[in-house]
């Protein structure tokens, strides 16, 4: 198998596994664990066998595909020494966490969800580590933030889990956005987003004027992710996650993503004063604050959380020092921290699982109940404290050596050895306290559960990790040596220093400091241990009042209430106010534009000859519009008729001014719109001028009307002026000429507007008919569950008197007179049906050459249907004619898309039209264009959508009657009983 393929498989497999696991049923614990575990082991095998490719100096494996070619962004997987080391860490510890979680999680937890998130997280983390492209790296970076949100908030019914998840997301995703901008800046500086190119351009980046903003933004991402002071507050809150997740996120992944980023970009970003001050100070502060806070925690996981912060600070501090040896120490400590911290979290989880509490004040003497777990935890804690013969000792020695070597170079460094030793002593102190409180002392009493050793399988991950701690601690060169060397070489290249991973370096300053720290830590515990344990809240001395997390929560709450208050002051929920502001803004903007650029309304360049008939027609139109505005409140029917009149005038205007297509479509649309408005009228409440408005409202209403009138008048005047100014200027020779000239040669149509719609701009039209279909379905969906308000209109007077007449005569039943009165129109309308269908087909078929087309044909066909409803009533029509509008919509869309896709068969782009003329017998010459098929799709869809709306509205009356009948029957049944 080619190595690139293996790499791609390793990168994709976790996501596939994630999708597979989430589809398992909620109780499938074993299946989920086996699937997740085997996915990770398979990935690990893929990465593992690639080791020879990256072990050679400068060796790396690259697999690239085009991703966003127009932006010059490729999707690149790049495996080098550093990426290999991190990938193994992520996958190896991931697999152990899966095994552990299988036995940790309770039977009632939906475990497949956990494993699915976990696999997705592994995939995102691998994505970061393997990214060979800056943009790609940021995408995976944000993915880890999002998935970690899901993981931390896994127990969704737990408020602190939700809060912790939200805080982690806010901080790390916010940092991720900064990182994105930073990466774009670096890409701009270098001229490429390719990681290999960027890593080779260190001097260009450091000398660029954009270096400072880029550095600050990238570090904002890295420091938030790796929980550096003052962004560390999210990490302790994230402890609300299930312990296996904490073990994973805070040892090998998530927080290490920030560290990875700093190591990755160390060759190009480090080496300046700014880097030293930001990274060094952040690391130092984090290390000390973390260690100090860890001392005072009573919760086992809280102690480990702050200890993690402190160790991350240590690694960051190392990266801040401008020394290649410090980078070696940082990478080494990253690996060591991952192993011992993962095992400690798992041990804490076992204690919690078996005793029911994590409070160190209640725990005591567990040595007797679980000697095996206790031994494992003690070894891991010793590794954390930096006790000799364990891996923690080696990297801590390197750290102290760097602290000593770099002392005096910068101002801050004078204190470096002292502060480093102090932090190490703190580490020793909390490690001793952790072990002493939990495993020694008197036998525990009133624990929630009787403690005992966990199941065998739950311990295996810890055993393996502790074994790694010891193996690295004893024979570093045989175990971690080669991989570490590969990682260091891939970062530092030619600057790789000579270093020695030996346990014994002779009596020297670092050893002395190490001894001071170890002894000092134990001594401090001896002196202060009792008082620390009695400390009531577990807040660290001196910093008790400074709770960053609470400050953050308060700031967020303030933000929300502030925004809400601002909205209350500046915004309104009332539509009228919103619309008024909208129109006023538009007016002001238009006036401003006019004032700035000058407004020359009267510059007559062209004019068509005045026609009194046209003016007269518009006099009627204007009267209709004003009439509609005046009547709409109390006389809805006449207002609807007036609007129809205005539409008619506008249709005639189109006809007059050389737009026959528009005229035809407008008049057809006008008919259906009016029918629809009439159908809707009956469900509106009675509004009578005789009903008095509240007196308190009268003055306000009058004022409002005056303001509205001014707005409307000014807007109308403005639009009129603008229209006049444009119309009297000579036409610009735009794209119109091209369309007119090419309509026949290229599309075989003589009706340019139709050719534009179905051929040149067919893709736009496809979008348009999609909208139409969606609106049709929305109307249908809204009306399906809709029970309209009771009919607001009583029965018309005519109907009442007709029914009374019928009831009084023998041989007549109510409704007969009304039916007789409408007999002639009804027969006419029924017989019109085939003719209107014919007209619709005619409009459609001639559309390519003469005014008409799919839109007009479709609406005409709808009118044919609606007319039947009006003539005979909904029930009569539905008994005889099954219109299935939804099928029409689907078929129309399908036909349109297929007509477009047909051009693929000929190797042409989507919706490329072709045409020919065909002469069948009788019909004469007809154009056969693929655009005609597309137009057919339009027509069918338009019929479906508009018929759907109208039928759905019309059908309400049937439902209403049926509901009334059913009600009457029920009442009749109840009567005899």
């Amino acid at each position, binding site marked *: 198998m080619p190595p690139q393929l293996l790499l791609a498989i390793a990168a994709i497999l976790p996501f596939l596994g994630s999708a597979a696991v989430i589809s398992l049923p909620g109780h499938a614990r074993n299946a989920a664990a086996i699937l997740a575990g085997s996915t990770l082991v398979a990935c690990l095998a893929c990465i593992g066998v690639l080791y020879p490719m990256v072990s050679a100096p400068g060796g790396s494996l690259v697999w690239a595909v085009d991703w966003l070619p127009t932006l010059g962004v490729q999707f690149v997987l790049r495996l080098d020494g550093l990426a290999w080391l991190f990938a193994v860490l992520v996958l190896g510890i991931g697999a152990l966490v899966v095994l552990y979680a299988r036995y940790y999680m309770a039977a009632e937890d939906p475990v497949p969800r956990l494993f699915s998130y976990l696999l997705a997280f592994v995939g995102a983390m691998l994505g970061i580590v393997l990214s060979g492209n800056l943009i790609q790296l940021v995408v995976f970076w944000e993915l880890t933030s999002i998935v970690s949100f899901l993981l931390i908030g896994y127990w969704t019914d737990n408020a602190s889990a939700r809060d912790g998840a939200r805080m982690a997301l806010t901080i790390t995703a916010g940092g991720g956005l900064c990182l994105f901008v930073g990466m774009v800046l670096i890409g701009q500086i270098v001229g490429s987003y390719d990681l290999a190119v960027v890593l080779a351009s260190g001097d260009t980046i450091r000398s660029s004027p954009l270096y400072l903003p880029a550095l600050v933004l990238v570090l904002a991402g890295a420091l938030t992710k790796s929980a550096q002071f003052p962004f560390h507050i999210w990490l302790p809150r994230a402890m609300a996650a299930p312990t296996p997740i904490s073990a994973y996120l805070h040892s090998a992944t998530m927080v290490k993503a920030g560290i990875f980023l700093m190591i990755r970009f160390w060759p190009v970003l480090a080496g300046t004063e700014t880097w030293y001050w930001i990274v060094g100070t952040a690391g130092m502060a984090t290390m000390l604050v973390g260690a100090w806070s860890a001392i005072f925690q009573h919760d086992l996981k809280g102690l480990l959380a702050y200890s993690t912060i402190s160790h991350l600070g240590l690694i960051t501090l190392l990266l801040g020092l401008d020394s290649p040896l410090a980078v070696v120490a940082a990478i080494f400590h990253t690996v060591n921290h991952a192993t011992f911290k993962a095992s400690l979290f798992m041990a804490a989880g076992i204690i919690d699982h078996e005793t029911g509490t994590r409070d160190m004040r209640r725990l005591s003497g567990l040595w007797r109940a679980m000697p095996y777990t206790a031994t494992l935890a003690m070894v891991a804690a010793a590794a954390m404290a930096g006790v000799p013969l364990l891996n923690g000792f080696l990297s801590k020695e390197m750290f102290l050596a760097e602290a000593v070597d770099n002392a005096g170079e910068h101002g801050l460094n004078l204190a470096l050895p002292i502060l480093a030793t102090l932090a190490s002593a703190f580490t020793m102190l909390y490690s001793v306290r952790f072990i002493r409180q939990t495993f020694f002392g008197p036998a525990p009493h009133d624990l929630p559960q009787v403690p005992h050793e966990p199941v065998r399988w739950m311990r295996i991950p810890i055993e393996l990790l502790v074994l790694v701690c010891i193996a690295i601690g004893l024979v570093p060169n045989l175990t971690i040596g080669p991989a570490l060397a590969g990682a260091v070489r891939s970062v530092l290249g030619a600057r790789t220093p000579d270093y020695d991973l030996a346990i014994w370096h002779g009596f020297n300053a670092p050893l002395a400091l190490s001894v001071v720290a170890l002894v000092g830590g134990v001594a401090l515990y001896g002196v202060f241990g009792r008082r620390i344990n009695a400390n009531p809240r577990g807040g660290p001395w001196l910093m008790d009042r400074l709770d960053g997390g609470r400050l953050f929560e308060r700031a967020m709450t303030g933000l929300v209430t502030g925004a809400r208050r601002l909205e209350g002051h500046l915004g309104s929920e009332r539509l009228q106010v919103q619309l008024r502001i909208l129109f006023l803004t538009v007016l002001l903007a238009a006036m401003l534009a006019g004032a700035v650029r000058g407004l020359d309304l009267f510059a007559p360049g062209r004019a068509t000859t005045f026609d009194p008939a046209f003016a007269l027609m518009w006099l009627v139109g204007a009267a209709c519009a004003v009439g509609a505005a005046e009547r*709409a409140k109390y006389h809805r029917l006449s207002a609807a008729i007036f609007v129809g009149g205005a*539409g008619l005038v506008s249709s005639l205007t189109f006809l007059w001014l050389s737009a026959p297509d528009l005229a035809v479509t407008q008049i057809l649309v006008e008919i259906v719109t009016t029918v629809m408005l009439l159908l809707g009228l009956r469900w509106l*409440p009675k509004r009578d001028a005789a009903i008095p408005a509240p007196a308190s409202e009268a003055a306000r209403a009058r004022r409002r009307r005056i303001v509205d009138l001014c707005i409307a008048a000014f807007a109308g005047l403005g639009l009129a002026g603008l229209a006049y100014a444009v119309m009297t200027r000579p036409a610009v020779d735009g794209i119109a000429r091209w369309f007119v000239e090419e309509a026949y040669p290229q599309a075989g149509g003589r009706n340019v507007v139709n050719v534009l719609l179905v051929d040149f701009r067919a893709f736009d039209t496809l979008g348009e008919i999609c909208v139409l279909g969606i609106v049709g379905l929305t109307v249908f969906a809204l009306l399906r569950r809709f029970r309209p*308000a009771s009919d607001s209109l009583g029965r018309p007077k005519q109907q009442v008197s007709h029914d009374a007449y019928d009831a009084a005569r023998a041989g007549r039943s109510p409704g007969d007179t009304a039916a007789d009165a409408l007999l002639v129109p009804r027969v006419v309308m029924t017989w019109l049906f085939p003719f209107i269908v014919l007209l619709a087909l005619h409009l459609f078929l001639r559309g390519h050459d003469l*005014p008409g087309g799919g839109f007009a044909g479709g609406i005409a066909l709808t009118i044919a249907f609606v007319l039947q409803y009006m003539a005979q009533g909904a029930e009569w029509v539905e008994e005889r004619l099954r219109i299935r509008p939804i099928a029409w919509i689907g078929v129309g869309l399908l036909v349109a898309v297929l007509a477009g896709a047909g051009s693929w068969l000929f190797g042409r782009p989507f919706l490329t039209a072709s045409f020919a003329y065909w002469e069948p017998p009788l019909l004469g010459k007809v154009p056969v264009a693929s655009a005609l098929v597309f137009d057919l799709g339009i027509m069918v869809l338009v019929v479906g959508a508009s018929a759907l709306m109208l039928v759905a509205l019309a059908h309400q009356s049937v439902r209403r009657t049926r509901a009334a009948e059913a009600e009457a029957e029920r009442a009749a049944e109840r009567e005899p009983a």
Partner: protein
Amino acid sequence: MELVLSLGIGVFAASGIWLMLRPRTFQVALGISLLSYAVNLFIFAMGRLTVGAPPVLGAGAEVVSVDDPVPQALVLTALVIGFALTALFLVVLLAARGITGSDHVDGREPGQGEPQPGNPHP
């Protein structure tokens, strides 16, 4: 002609905007209709006015000077979409009337407190 049409557009737009600012949903629905007539005519007028020269070529398809087809094509789809918009608005206003019991655009009569959603499925 230009003057007449531009005045007409102005009257349509003013009536439409006035209606859209009214409190009752039916008024707003008619207002949207009127405003869309005005806007359609406005867009159409951007292609300048021509009498008797529709963008439909003769039988021989010889290219002649015709009215600008581009604004016409834009307006044609706008007409159909405008119909869909009116339909959707009408249905929404009926549903809102059914649920809130009021045909006020805010779902409550002026002077009343919060909208009281009645039972939509009696």
